[in-house]
């Protein structure tokens, strides 16, 4: 059964491209547009990996990661944080919250795929 990945970002085009790349590699993808939306989607299908942006309206990525880690079904789920060079602080904060993997924006689809494949295979 294919592994399912939740992609959380407020940019629809980013989600679309990431989703195309991941689906192309054989993963299932669920999209969410912000932290709140993402939390609501965790209750549905079993999600094996989460990719989340930091800067988002409604609920930012850090808060979302903290909340997700509190859920028994997601306390060990790998989380990739989307950071930027100018936000080294966010990366550390994300790691403290439980997102131990990261990809620096802007990135190419192949880079995202590499990061994901290190953590789970489809």
């Amino acid at each position, binding site marked *: 059964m294919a592994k399912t990945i939740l992609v959380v970002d407020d*940019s629809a*085009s980013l989600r679309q491209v990431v989703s195309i790349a991941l689906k192309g590699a054989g993963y299932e993808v669920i999209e969410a547009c912000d932290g709140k939306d993402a939390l609501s989607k965790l209750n549905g299908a079993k999600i094996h990996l989460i990719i989340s942006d930091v800067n988002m309206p409604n609920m930012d990525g850090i808060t979302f990661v903290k909340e997700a880690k509190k859920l028994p079904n997601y*306390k060990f789920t*790998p989380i990739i944080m989307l950071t*930027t060079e100018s936000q*080294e602080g*966010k990366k*550390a904060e994300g790691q403290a919250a439980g997102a131990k993997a990261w990809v620096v924006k802007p990135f190419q689809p192949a880079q995202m795929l590499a990061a994901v494949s290190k*953590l789970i295979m489809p």
Partner: protein
Amino acid sequence: MSINIDQALQTFIAEARELLEDMENSLLQLESSPEDAEIIGAIFRAAHTIKGSAGLFGLDQVVGFTHIVENVLDRVRDASIRIEGDLVALLLESRDHMTELVNVIADQGGQLDDAALGREQALRKRLHSYQGVQAGHAAVVVEPEIESSGGTVAGPDNWHLSLRFDREILKNGMDPISFFRYLETLGEIVSIVTLPDAMPPVEEMNAELCYLGFEINFKSDADKNTIASVFDFVRENSSIRILPPHSKVAEFIDLIKTLPEDEKRLGDILVTIGALTRQELDEGLNAQKNPDGSTAPLGEILIGQRSVEQEVVQAALDKQNQVRESKSKENKYVRVQADKLDELINLVGELVIAGAGANLLAQRANDSSLQETTSTMSRLVEEIRDGALKLRMVPIGDTFSRFQRVVRDVSKELGKDIDLVISGAETELDKTVVEKIGDPLMHLVRNAMDHGIESAEKRLAAGKPVKGMLKLNAYHDSGSIAIEISDDGGGLNRDRILQKGIERGLVQPNQILTDQEIYNLIFEAGFSTAEAVTNLSGRGVGMDVVKRNIVALRGTVDLESAAGQGTTIRIRLPLTLAIIDGFLVGVEKSSYVVPLDMVLECVELTESERQGMKERSYLNLRGEVLPLVPLRAHFEIEGSHAKRENVVVVQYAGQKAGLVVDELLGEFQTVIKPLGKLFSNLRGISGSTILGTGEVALILDVPSLVQQAANAEQKISQAN
């Protein structure tokens, strides 16, 4: 897949444009409240998101420029630089340039022209002065290749990986086995030994910690960084040692010494997996016993740099505390492609028609329970139709707020101080109407600023506040939307307009007109009263074009003015273009729909008039010449003439014409279905609709029919 990417790119373009619009609005707000962290946050996020998404598509030009803008914004955010007028202007210009970059992408294969490239250079230079000391990209430290300085070269051409992970990694969702699976995509795991030695006895063992160690013989053409990057996410607190192919024996010996497991056991393992031969191992261990100075630890490509990382983390956290988080407005939308909505509305239109058909059949069948059911269904279908049309309704606010920037820029250009006041921004109207109203509004706004509002001196002299005021207002009014553009300027000069009207032959010298009629003269073709043609107006596009555009949307425009107090232009538009109030007429067996708002009156043709029609194509309507368009002839409908004929008098842009038809079938509200491309050259028809009976009725293109009639009449009068 490439189709999908192309779709994603379209999403990116739409999204970037939206963000750029938000960015512009926020920047304008920033002028009045430069300290607002929320606004600054929103601007930063817009640039940030655009850069991030652009990177995914490999749009380097966008990424490169936006990166600089983001950088400056980041410094604004952490209060390293202060917002002032020049910076806002610079950011606005940068935003414009970003818009241009996005437009270039939208315009596939396009390129920035030289002027734009020049602008970019200039902007970069100006932005640079705000950038301060470049933080630089995250340094990627590539460790120098270790020069072989003697010693035996070991093993085959393979890498050796020695891995002792951070105990916590499993809890973080990182599984060593996943790393191995990934390694297999980079090369071949020739052999691997799993070392459970570190695992404590049952009672002390915590099943959620990782106790396993691994020694791996790995064959790969990948470079050191690529292999090392596999373990990027677990580097902290782990011991990851990677020895490149042909490493010195001494390096393996050093590895054995520093690993926690028993020396002999590790030595055996290295021999088993093929990293060393037994002889190399023995010689190496012996050499270690007699150190000759060349045993300094070497060959560790990647080691846990705990102390360094700790500092970075601390510094980062400190910085983090200064960064203020911003929240944004609740924004819960589903983005739907416009053509999907159009398709839905189209289908709903057909449903309405099919429902009407069912209704008709039910009535004919004379079955009361069937009639009841169909009428309930019709009601529901109508509700669905209204609901579907509402989906396409958007607030006019976004269109209005674009004018903030226009008013700001134009008032600077004109040297006038003008405030824009917006009200009714939440008033909704159909998206298709919104898209088409932008240009006429733009013209009216510019016109009001240029000609309406007086110069500061004149205003002072008239005892008015120096600052001029322009208002944009919208509200719903009996099934249509009214949009008002008002200024507090000098008002229209009634006498001048009348004089000009007479000069141009639009008005007879002795004609008596109401003020209203005189004001409306400015919407006539080629009418301009401005004494000086300024940079803004007088570029050939007159008020007549504005009016024509509005009428094309089935709207009306009128004007109120009070000398010395200002002018208000009021546009009325239908809420949607998808539904039309029509007047149904019949010729032979065909039905046609005339837009009701263009119908003036209906007259029945007398027998003598019908006879006269054979010789001339006009009618004497109460002493006025009314050119006629016999639809039967126009559409080449065959068949005998009906017993009676009627004339529907229609008006467009001040010109009247009479459409000659057989039957008048009454008012009728209908859903417009656009004609396919095939019919785009057809004259006199603007769309179609389906009647309850299932028959198609064509919607008449009144403007073109009126034009045609007027031309024919002109020819005749010239011939005479």
